[in-house]
């Protein structure tokens, strides 16, 4: 008899007033008993909508059934069949808009905590099993992956499982892409990411850091070096700014810079050399997950007041509900329907305030969301000494400007063929934010997976080179 409780087994978390002063993980994970109890909520329905709701089609009911039977190791292998980064996905996937959104249990109460269970299985395995993963037998072919973020890592893992000699090139000194520079430690501990990447090494994937493809080697030179297909997963790394007066004052950061200083360069740890502003009052502009991450980092670094400044209302916020909820619990102040007009600075060039204007919602715009319109005469000053701009990013132009024949759209995203993710260049595939613009980790992984399959077919000649 399944567990018919209408709510998920709650995930233990650090208390808000404790966690907003440390960088340790917020959610603490299920115990074995909690996991089994939650697994019993899955009624193992016939049509399994959750599997189709997952961009990498994890065999969700099967792995949950194994958790139910306390076969945690087997459950891990079941997930691993289609998802090389379960500990990451269990933490950062927006399950509420994917697998859990379509869960049958969600029709009467909360859906099954699929994300919580995935995370539990991955963490359990990490803690209890120390087996080396056997690399597949080499098939004699070489493939290159540019960028070691979620898209590239999954692509590399899937190719390695097929026996390819795969090399991943990363521009930074550390592998993981947005998983290490963007998503903060308290949401995704870096040792978890490193552990998952170690699994890839065991699969035989070679990872080369400090390599800027497009500069040190072009895509064409990679082919000359014997790589038969190349995957571009270079993400959407270029930060957008608002182009308002005062944006170049000291202590105005892009969220990318702020998060990179905090996460990758560990400026919260005194033993690291990375400097970061010691802020008193911080305004983070934007309403996405990145804005929430930046705000919560600022709070943890000791800022007394941290605002989220967003021009629409909370309903339109693109951030996950859970992230908004966590941010509020931690004392982040939400200034919605508020738009920055200019940033002011002192005589030394440091931020000393931000002028904003109140907004109201008008008619729906092209995105279907109601368009924010300025309320005349509602300008007011915010007392802040740091501003973090988190209004989005666009794809990095480095590769498209150094690779002849690569077609891009007007936003700078690489144009790819729908079913194969092949670009306008034969043998060059792409996926993730480099194609779509800023999206989610799991969508990038789905694209990396699709590309890996097509790269294999391309190299084996199933997709003719002259198609």
């Amino acid at each position, binding site marked *: 008899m399944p567990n018919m409780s209408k709510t998920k087994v709650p995930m233990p978390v650090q208390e808000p007033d404790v966690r907003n002063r440390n960088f340790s993980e917020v959610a603490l994970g299920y115990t074995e008993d909690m996991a089994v109890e939650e697994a019993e909520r899955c009624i193992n329905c016939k049509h399994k909508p959750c599997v189709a709701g997952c961009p990498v089609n994890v065999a969700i009911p099967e792995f949950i059934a194994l958790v139910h039977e306390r076969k945690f190791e087997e459950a891990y292998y079941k997930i691993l069949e289609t998802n090389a980064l379960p500990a990451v996905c269990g933490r950062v996937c927006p399950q509420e808009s994917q697998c859990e959104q379509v869960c049958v249990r969600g029709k009467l109460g909360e859906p099954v905590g699929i994300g919580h269970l995935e995370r539990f299985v991955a963490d359990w395995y990490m803690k209890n099993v120390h087996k080396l993963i056997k690399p597949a037998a080499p098939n004699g072919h070489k493939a290159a992956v540019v960028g070691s973020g979620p898209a590239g890592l999954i692509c590399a893992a899937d190719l390695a499982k097929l026996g390819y000699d795969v090399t991943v090139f*990363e*521009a*930074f*000194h550390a*592998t993981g892409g947005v998983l290490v*520079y963007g998503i903060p430690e308290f949401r995704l501990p870096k040792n978890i990411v490193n552990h998952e990447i170690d699994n890839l090494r065991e699969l035989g994937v*070679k*990872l*080369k*850091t*400090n*390599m*800027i493809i497009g*500069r*040190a*080697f072009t895509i064409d030179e990679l082919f000359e*070096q014997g790589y038969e297909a190349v995957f571009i997963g270079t993400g959407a*790394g*270029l*930060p957008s*700014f608002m*182009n308002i007066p005062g*944006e*170049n*004052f*000291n*202590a105005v*950061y*892009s969220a*990318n*810079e702020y998060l*990179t*200083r905090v996460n990758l*360069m*560990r400026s919260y740890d005194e*033993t*690291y*050399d*990375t*400097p*970061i502003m*010691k802020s008193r009052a911080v305004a983070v502009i934007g309403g996405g997950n990145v804005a929430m991450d930046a705000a919560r980092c600022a709070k943890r670094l000791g800022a007394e007041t941290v605002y989220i400044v967003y021009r629409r209302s909370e309903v339109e916020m693109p951030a996950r509900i859970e992230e908004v909820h966590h941010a509020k619990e931690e004392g982040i102040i939400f200034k919605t329907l508020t738009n920055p007009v200019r940033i002011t600075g002192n005589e*030394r*060039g440091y931020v000393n305030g931000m002028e904003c204007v109140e907004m109201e919602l008008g008619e729906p715009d092209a995105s279907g969301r109601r368009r924010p319109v300025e309320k005349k005469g509602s300008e007011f000053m915010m007392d802040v000494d740091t501003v973090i701009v988190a209004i989005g990013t666009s794809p*990095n*132009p*480095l590769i498209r400007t150094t690779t002849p024949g690569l077609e891009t759209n007007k936003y700078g995203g690489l144009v790819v063929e729908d079913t194969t993710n092949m670009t306008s260049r034969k043998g060059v595939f792409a996926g993730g934010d480099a194609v779509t613009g800023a999206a989610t980790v799991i969508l990038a992984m789905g694209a990396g997976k699709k590309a890996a399959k097509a790269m294999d077919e391309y190299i084996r000649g199933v997709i003719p080179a002259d198609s």
Partner: protein
Amino acid sequence: MVTITSVAPRRFFGMEGFKLDRQMFEVMTKETLNSMTKRMQVYAPHIANKARPGQFIIFRVNEKGERIPLTVADTDKDTGAVTIIFQEVGKSTKELGELEIGETVLDFVGPLGKPSELDRIGRAAVVGGGLGCAIAFPQAKYLFNSGTQVDIIAGFRTKDLVILEDDMKAVSQNFYMCTDDGTYGTKGLVTDVLRGLIESGEKYDKVLVVGPLPMMKFVSLLTKEFGISTIVSMNTIMIDGTGMCGGCRLTVGGETKFACVDGPEFDGHLVDFDEAIRRSGMYKDIEGEKNAQHVCRLEKM
């Protein structure tokens, strides 16, 4: 003045030399140019093969260090050497300077930035200030070797800090030295020398300036007065060097540009130097603290 401590045996291990994720970026040579400036050759063949004048690298000495950009001063494709010249002014550059031949730099990435546009220039004045001479030198060398008439104006605070004098003389038709205190060459600033040359009728198609921000500002103001096209090299605070952080942004002709991918070279007449000077000092207070914590390995012995 230049002392070559010793030279590492030549080695080449190409792409197969990667150990785990990292290449071994070995210090091949190390020289002391003056009391605070060192020149190093670092083994990085994939960068040596590609780097062109004006481009830069980013290094990180150890796991807890900062990422610091440095302009490529020279390359040697045969030995795989990338030459860097740096002043030991901050914690990271001091730690770099303490590396011995045969030791390795943890991270060394490049080439970054756009190469200088140095072709089809008839006559150029290359102006270097202090350490800026290390960056001006490869440009002057490239111009000189491609047939441009090159005048170099090199300025230093005082005689003891003079670097690369012979190197610069070798790649210029005319070489002018000046020091702030008059201990060597003419007494005065590079702007004084350049103004003198222009007013005495010397004609330049292009002026290239590399040095401290205030120096580049005043040279640019001077050449604007005479309508001479001027290129400056902006060494800003940055993290990744690939356009990702935007920390290096500056205003050029009213538009925001990223020094790492749009530069590092820009039209000196369009750069907002006052803003760039303010931004360059963003972490001065914090840096001061970090610097004070650094203890030289020699002092620990």
